Each structure stands twice: as structure tokens, then as C-alpha cells.
């Protein structure tokens, strides 16, 4: 009983595409430069790491780090997103657990942590075992506490359908906007002044001084606003015009990762 390698390879390829898209987003955003969105690069970093880790788990040839190292990485990410959710939760209560903010990323990170921390050594690894390709066979990797795998699978599927619904709704803005990033009349986004654009948006585009990216209503952190000088207009335009920065790219990546992660958890039960 094995899962055909080509199926695992397809999932691995999707994860590599997710990692590539996340890397492209990071490159377009340049978070290593001050004022380039370093404070919010965590999601792209998380997606990049998850994509690489899952691809490596699905196909041995793409394996990069040992399971223990990945467990540490995702432990840190889980703690990070846990703090974000706790902070949001204090303000919004249960509402912080829905939607497109940190809660889905917390679930994704925690699921990855569980996957790498609870994986059991294959009982009988054959010479042909290849990553999860081997997991489908007699040397199948399994997870301890399988009920957690089931719970995570339910949560991941739940977030997937929610994301799909929100992504496909007419008139959405913000996290689910399908609008390409564009620059508001006042320049780049970090101005601390609300602005709205986007396809079918409810509010008129109003960006008196702040720029808008991705059709989101953006209110930049005051600290960033105070510290950062706007980048050159041409540079900002080039960055903002990058299609990979559109919000739907990240949401689509999350949907793909959610399905793949649920698949991995289920076949490792």
C-alpha cells in the first residue's frame, strides 16, 4: 500500500510554488531595509519555510533540515503567531480567531510543529522509502497523538473553505482583495492615514496622504511612520506594481498549504 510518488511530487511541486511566491513577495518587499514592511514579513517568511519544509517531507530529494530543526523553527513561529493572536484577542475577543489575520497562521505553524515533533520513526523503512513516498508504504511514518492530526485537519480545512469563500466574494477588500497593489496619490503606504481602494470596494478611494497597497485599508504603525522616509517614487511604484504583492496571492498560498497540510496529516495518522 503506497501513495503513488507522482501524487506526492505534485503536492511537493505546489509547495515549492508557494515557497517561490513567498520568496518573491519578500524580495519585492525588501523587508531587510528599514521601512519596507519588516514588521509584517513574518507571514511570507512563515509561508516560505512551510513550503520548503513540506516539500522536503513529501519528497526526500527536497529534504533540507532534520525534523528536529524544523520543529524548533515552527516552535518559534507558533510562539510568534500565538503572541499576535493573544494580542488581537485581548482587543477583539473571539473575533480574532476568524478571518485572515494571525489565527490561521498560528494554526498552520502549530500543525507544522506537531507534524515534525510527533512524527514516529518508521517501523520498517525500506530502501525505496522516499520521504512521504516511503510513508505510503511499509515504512510509513506515523504521528503520535493522532487525534491532534484530525483536529488540525479539521481546522485547516475550515480555514481553507473560509478563505475560498472570502476570496471569491464580490466587493471584498483588505486581506481578500484581488486588486493588484497600487500606489495612492500621496505616495507610499506608510503614512498612518486610512485609505481604501480595491475592486468593488465599498468605500471610495480616499488616500489623502497615505498610500495604499493591495487594495487594503492601510494604517501604518505610527512608529514606522515617524521613522521612515518614503522610498523613491519609482522604486515604490515598481514594488507596488509587483503582482506577487497582491493579497490574493498570499491567501491562495495559504489555501494550497492548508489542503496539503491536511493531506499530510491525514495520511500520517
Amino acid at each position, binding site marked *: 500500500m503506497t501513495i*503513488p510518488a507522482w501524487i506526492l511530487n505534485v503536492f511537493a511541486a505546489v509547495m515549492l510554488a508557494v515557497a517561490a511566491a513567498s520568496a518573491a513577495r519578500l524580495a519585492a518587499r525588501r523587508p531587510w531595509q528599514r521601512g519596507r514592511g519588516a514588521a509584517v514579513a513574518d507571514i511570507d517568511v512563515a509561508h516560505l519555510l512551510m513550503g520548503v519544509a513540506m516539500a522536503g517531507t513529501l519528497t526526500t530529494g527536497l529534504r533540507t533540515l532534520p525534523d528536529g530543526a524544523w520543529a524548533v523553527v515552527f516552535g518559534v513561529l507558533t510562539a510568534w503567531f500565538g503572541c499576535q493572536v493573544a494580542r488581537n484577542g485581548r482587543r477583539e475577543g473571539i473575533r480574532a480567531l476568524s478571518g485572515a489575520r494571525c489565527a490561521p497562521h498560528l494554526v498552520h505553524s502549530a500543525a507544522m510543529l506537531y507534524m515534525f515533533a510527533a512524527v514516529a520513526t518508521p517501523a520498517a523503512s525500506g530502501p525505496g522509502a522516499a520521504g512521504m513516498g516511503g510513508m505510503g508504504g511499509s515504512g510509513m511514518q506515523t504521528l503520535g497523538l493522532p487525534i491532534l492530526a484530525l483536529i488540525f485537519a479539521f481546522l485547516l480545512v475550515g480555514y481553507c473553505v473560509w478563505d475560498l469563500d472570502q476570496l471569491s466574494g464580490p466587493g471584498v477588500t483588505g486581506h481578500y482583495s484581488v486588486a493588484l497593489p497600487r500606489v495612492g496619490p500621496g505616495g507610499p503606504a506608510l503614512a498612518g492615514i486610512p485609505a481604501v481602494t480595491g475592486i468593488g470596494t465599498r468605500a471610495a478611494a480616499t488616500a489623502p496622504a497615505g498610500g495604499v497597497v493591495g487594495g*487594503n485599508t492601510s494604517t501604518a*504603525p505610527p512608529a514606522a511612520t515617524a521613522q521612515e522616509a518614503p522610498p523613491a517614487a519609482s522604486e515604490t511604484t515598481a514594488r507596488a506594481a509587483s503582482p506577487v504583492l497582491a493579497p490574493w496571492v498570499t491567501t491562495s498560498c495559504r489555501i494550497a498549504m492548508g489542503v496539503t497540510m491536511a493531506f499530510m496529516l491525514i495520511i500520517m495518522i
Partner: protein
Amino acid sequence: MSDFAVAAHRDAGRAGPATEADGVRAAPDARRVLQLALAGLWLLDGVLQYQAFMFSKGFGQMLAGTASGNPGVVGRPITWNASLVQHHAVLVNAIFATVQLLLGIGIAWRPAVRPALAASIAWALGVWWLGEGLGMVLTPGTSPVTGAPGAVILYALLAVLLWPADRPGPAAPFVAARAVGAPVARGLWLVLWLGLAYFALQPANRAPQGLHDMIAGMAHGEPGWLAALERNAAALVAHQGLTASIVLAAALVLVAAGVYLPGRPARGAVALAILVAAVLWVFGEAFGAILAGGSTDPNSGLPLILLALAYWPARTAGARGPDLSPAVSPAGEGARS
């Protein structure tokens, strides 16, 4: 997600209550939520279908086993399909799994909700016959405790009841009545739950050790804690097959009739339906035996709960809920037909 949107959100804690800065994410109405739950079930089924066992000849043999006990006219197509699966296990199963994934994605993707729901009905009927042997409802040993009449036929029923259209006239008393009308919806509910009561009283269930053996049998292959739970539940009904069957059937009849009651009693009946479905899912179906491996769906408990939620009586303004323009899809969600 835009980084700037995230920045905006994070900053909202300092700037004040979250408003538009969070992005417009109007909550979908009750029917859309149930549609999404159905989409989730299909998505989960698709993922389950990718398990290693499904790519083996054992899956085909499992399908062939559902022909046993069914009339020949029902069983022969099952045997033909099982043979096809056995000979082309990888290709056929990959198609099965992908179709179910796409059904889930399609229902969740608003512009595709109608075709996806329609396709899910056709697919569910096919699977119910060729994959589940009509839920074994024509065989003597069937029982609601172990999942009769089959999860997938409940998916089809849900797809019909959650169809994105509204009948003209007064506001529907519950979500399930919006597309087909209250009389039809109540009739379907009555048939379903009376059918379950009928199955509960079949000889196999009335036998002294009938229910005990069914429940104890679910412990096989489950994790220790769940196996212990199953064994304890089985011990409770040991040698009590007749009594337990009558109690279960009485509860199911109450549920069936309850949907015709007004207000609070109706809510009580639907709540009882949810409770019964949850008990069946945990103790009779062991969470669909997913933890034991080789399961193709979470069994009937979850869809029964979803179905019951679709019959939860609306408070005052009907089940239509608030007019949420973002929730109104181009496919006609919320539109009158």
C-alpha cells in the same frame, strides 16, 4: 494578504477599534455557513481518499463487499465498478480524490457554488450506489448506529436543501426550507429520521448483543483511548439490544415529529437530533473511523449534525438572515428563484 493590511490590523490595537482596516469580511448568512461546512466535508473526503489504502486493491475489494446482501440489480453495477477500481486503482482513485477536492473547492468558491452543488448531488448519488451499496439500507444488518443510510446521501440531501435560491412568499422558518419550501423540507426530515428509527428496530439491532457487537467492533484499530471508549459504550448496552434499540428509535421518532412543532419544542427536537447524531458519531462511528485509517468519510454523524442545524428554527425574521451584499454571489445566493 497584504503586508500593509496586516500592519494596519496590528496597528489597530493602538489606533482604536478595528473597522474597515481589517478588510471587509462580512459574515456570511446561515445558509452560506452551512454550505461552507458541506464544502469542508467534501474537502476532507477528498483528502481521505488520498490515503495509501485507497490506492491498493483492498479498496476495490472493500467496494465489492458492499454488493453483498444487496439485490442483484443493485449489486451488479457495484461489482463492475469495484472490478474497474481494482484494475486501475491508482488512476481511478486519484480521479475520485481529485473530484471530491474540486467539489469542496467549488462549493466554497462563490461563483461556482451552483454547478458544484449540482455536481455534488450527482457524484454523491453515484458514490452512494457504487461505493456504499445504497448505504446498505436494503440489507438486513443496517443500523443508524454504524452510519445508515450512508454519509454521502446526506451530502446530496444537504446540497438540495442548501441550494442557493429562495422560494417566494413569507420568510422560511428555517434554512432548509428556503430552497424547497417548508412542507417539502419537513417531509424530507420526517422520512429521514423515521427511516433511521425503522433501521434501529431491525432484528440485527434488537438482538441482545446486536448493538454491543456493533459498537465493540468499532474499537478495532483505534487509538487506545478511543478503543476504551468504544468498549465501555459497548458494555453499557451489553445484553440490552432490545431496550437500547427501542430507546434509540423513540428518540429518533421524537426528532422526526419535532420539526412540525412550533417554537421551543421544535428547537428541543432539533437539539435532540444534534445530540443523537453526536452520540452516534462518537460512540457508534468512532469519529468515522478516521483514526483507524482507511476511512473515506467522517461517516453520517457530522452530516446529520449539519442537517439538523439547517432545520434550527429561525427566531423572528425567518432564516434568510440579514442582507449581506458581499455574501450574495453572482450565482444567485440570496436571490429569489
